[in-house]
C-alpha cells in the first residue's frame, strides 16, 4: 500500500469514527443525563461491555469479517463515543443544576429550550475535544496493531507510523501538528461560544445577580 492510499484509509477511518463517536456520545449522553435511571444504566452497561472488548482485541477479530477501515471506524467510534458520553452526561447534569438554569426554568422556559440554550453550550466543547482526539486514537490504534503484530499492515493506514524511520516520524509529527492546530481552533471557538450573543450574556448576569 502506498503512502497516499494509507493516508486516505486513515482519514476515512477517522471521519467514520468521529461521526459514530459524536453521534453515540450525543444521543446516549443526553438521554442518560436528562432521563437518568434506566437510560443511565444502559450507558453504564454499554461501557462495561465495550471495556470487556478493548480495541486491540475487537479490531483484529472483527477485521476478519469486515473490511479493516470499516472495523476501525465502528470499533473506535463506539469506544470513543461511549467514553465521551460519560463526560457529556456528567457535564450536562452538572450544568443543569446551575443557578441560572433553575432561574430560566422558574421564569417559564421549557425544559428542551433551557437544555438547548443554557445547558448544551457548557458541554459542547467536550464533544469538540472528543472529536478531535479521535484522530490520534485512530492513528495510534492502527499503529499499535501493526506494532504489536496483530496486523500485517496491508489493510490499515497507521502502519506507516509503526514502520518507524523518517516516514513514521513524519506521520507522528503530522498527527501532533494536527492536534495542536485544531486544539487552538477549538479553544478560540469555546471563547466565541462563551462570549456568545445577548442571550448567553443575560444568563451569566442572572447568576451574577444571584437570581437563584
Amino acid at each position: 500500500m502506498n503512502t497516499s492510499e494509507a493516508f486516505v484509509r486513515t482519514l476515512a477511518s477517522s471521519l467514520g469514527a468521529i461521526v459514530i463517536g459524536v453521534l453515540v456520545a450525543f444521543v446516549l449522553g443526553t438521554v442518560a443525563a436528562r432521563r437518568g435511571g434506566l437510560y443511565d444504566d444502559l450507558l453504564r452497561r454499554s461501557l462495561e461491555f465495550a471495556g470487556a472488548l478493548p480495541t486491540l482485541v475487537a479490531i483484529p477479530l472483527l477485521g476478519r469479517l469486515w473490511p479493516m477501515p470499516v472495523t476501525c471506524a465502528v470499533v473506535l467510534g463506539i469506544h470513543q463515543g461511549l467514553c465521551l458520553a460519560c463526560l457529556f452526561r456528567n457535564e450536562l447534569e452538572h450544568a443543569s443544576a446551575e443557578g441560572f438554569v433553575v432561574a430560566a426554568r422558574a421564569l417559564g422556559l421549557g425544559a428542551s429550550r433551557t437544555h438547548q440554550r443554557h445547558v448544551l453550550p457548557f458541554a459542547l466543547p467536550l464533544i469538540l475535544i472528543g472529536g478531535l482526539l479521535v484522530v490520534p486514537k485512530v492513528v495510534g490504534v492502527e499503529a499499535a496493531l501493526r506494532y504489536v503484530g496483530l496486523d500485517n499492515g496491508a489493510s490499515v493506514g497507521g502502519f506507516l507510523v509503526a514502520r518507524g524511520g523518517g516516514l513514521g516520524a513524519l506521520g507522528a509529527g503530522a498527527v501532533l501538528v494536527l492536534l495542536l492546530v485544531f486544539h487552538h481552533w477549538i479553544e478560540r471557538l469555546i471563547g466565541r461560544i462563551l462570549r456568545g450573543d445577548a442571550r448567553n450574556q443575560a444568563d451569566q448576569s442572572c447568576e451574577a445577580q444571584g437570581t437563584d
Partner: protein
Amino acid sequence: MLRRVLWLLPTLFLVSLAAFQFFAWTLPPPPQSSPGELPRSAPLPVFVNPHPDNARELALGLMQKVAEGPNERAAAQLAKLGGAALPHILPRLDQLSPTARGRVALALKPLALRMGIATQLELSDPDSASLFWTRFWQDRELDFRPIVVRRLVKRLTERSLALRRDDVIQLDTYALPELVKALGRVRDRTDVERVRRLGLLLAHITQKDWRLAPNPSLSDARRLVSTWQAWWLSEGPNYVALDGISKAIATVTQTRYGRWLRGLPAGFGMREDAAALSGSLGRATLLTLTLLASGAFGGYLLGAAAAVVGASLRGRVPRFLGFCACLGVSVPCLVPALNAGGKGGVFAACCLMLGFGYGAAYLYQRAATLTRRGAPWWPAAPIAGRRVLPVLGESAAACLGLLAGGLPALFVAATVLETAFDLPGLGQSTVHAVRRGDAEWLMASALVLSALTALLQTLSDSVAAALGYRPSVGSGRAALEGLG
C-alpha cells in the same frame, strides 16, 4: 454504591454471554471431535444444544452399525465406549438376529479382555461370545447401577485392595463419572496416594498413559487431576446416560459456553501452559495494573490540575501545557514511530502512561474549565496553590467522566508500552491470545476488564455525587438514606 456492587455479578454474567457470542462469531470453531476419542454427533453449539451427546444413543447407534455388517471402526468405538454401553446394548442382544448378535458380541471382545472377565478362548467364535455376554448380563446386571458404583469407588478411595480394584475394573467406563469425581482436591500426601490409585484405574479403563511417576509431588498430583478433569469435561458426556432432568440440563451444559462455564472453577489449571501461567500471571497483572493506575490516577489528576492552573493564565505557560498534552495523547503513535523503548524500563513506561493520562485529562478539563471562566465564583487572582482545589472541585465533572470511560484507551497505551519496553504484562498476553485465537484467555481478560470498568465507574459516580455533579446519583442516594 451497594446497588452498583450488587449489580456487578449479573452484569459480568451478561458481559460473559455477549463476549462469548462475539468470540464464537469471530474465532474459528474448535474441532468437532478430538483425535483418538469417541465421535461427536455434531459440532458443539454456542449456547443451546437440542441434541446433547448421550452414552445411550451413542451405544445404540454403534450397535446398529456393527450389527448391519462388518464395520471395524464402529466395533473399535463400541469397545472404547466400554462398560458405559453395556446397560443399553446387552438387554437388546436377544432382539437381534443370531448373525448380528454374534457380530456385536465379538466387537465387545476387547472390552471383556480389558475388564478381565474372559479369555481369548472364551470369545473365539460368535456363538460362544453371544452366550458369554448373555450370561454376563444375567449375573452382573445389578452391578451396573449408580449407587453400586458410588459405594465401590468410595471403598476404593478409602483403602486399595486388589479385589476392590477388580470390582471397579469390571464396571469399566461405567465407573468413570464416580472415579473422576473421587479425584477431588489435592492438599496433602494422603490425597496424592488417592490420586495415584485412582489414576492407575482411570489409565487402565481409558487406555491412556496419564499416570503419576514414582515419588510424585503435590504439584504432580494436582497436574494429573487437572488433566483428567479437562479430559472429562471434554469427553465425559459420551460416557453418561441422560434422562429427564439431566437431559434438560445437558442442553445448556453441553455447549461451548457451558463447557467454558464448567471449566471456570479450575481457572487456567486445565491448560497445557498452566505451570508457566501460574508463575507469571500475578506479576503480569500487577504490572498492567500499575501502568493503568499511573495513567488513570496519576495522569488524570495531573492533567486536571494543570488545566485548572493554565485556564487562568495567558501567554506561554498554557501553550506549553497544551503542547505537552498533545504530546501525551500521541504516546501510542510516537512510541512506535520513534521506536522508543528497550529492555525493562517499568519506570519509563509508567512515566509515559502518566503523560498519556495527562494529555487526555488536560484537554477535556481545560475545555470544561474554560466554560466556567465567567462564573461568579471564578477567582480574580491567578489560580495557584490553595485555589486549585476549589476550582477543580467546581469543574472536574469531565475528568470524572473520563475516569469512568477511559479504561479501553489506557489499555491500548499500556499494551504498546509493554511491547516497547518488553514488559510481560496482561496486554502482551492478550495480544498473544488474539494471535492464537485463545478464547479462554480472551474471556478471562474480558471479564477482568469489564469488572475494572464497573469499579472505576462506581468510583467516578461516587465522587461525582459527593461533589454534587450528578444530581441523579445523589438523589438516589438521598432517597435510600431517607428510607433508612
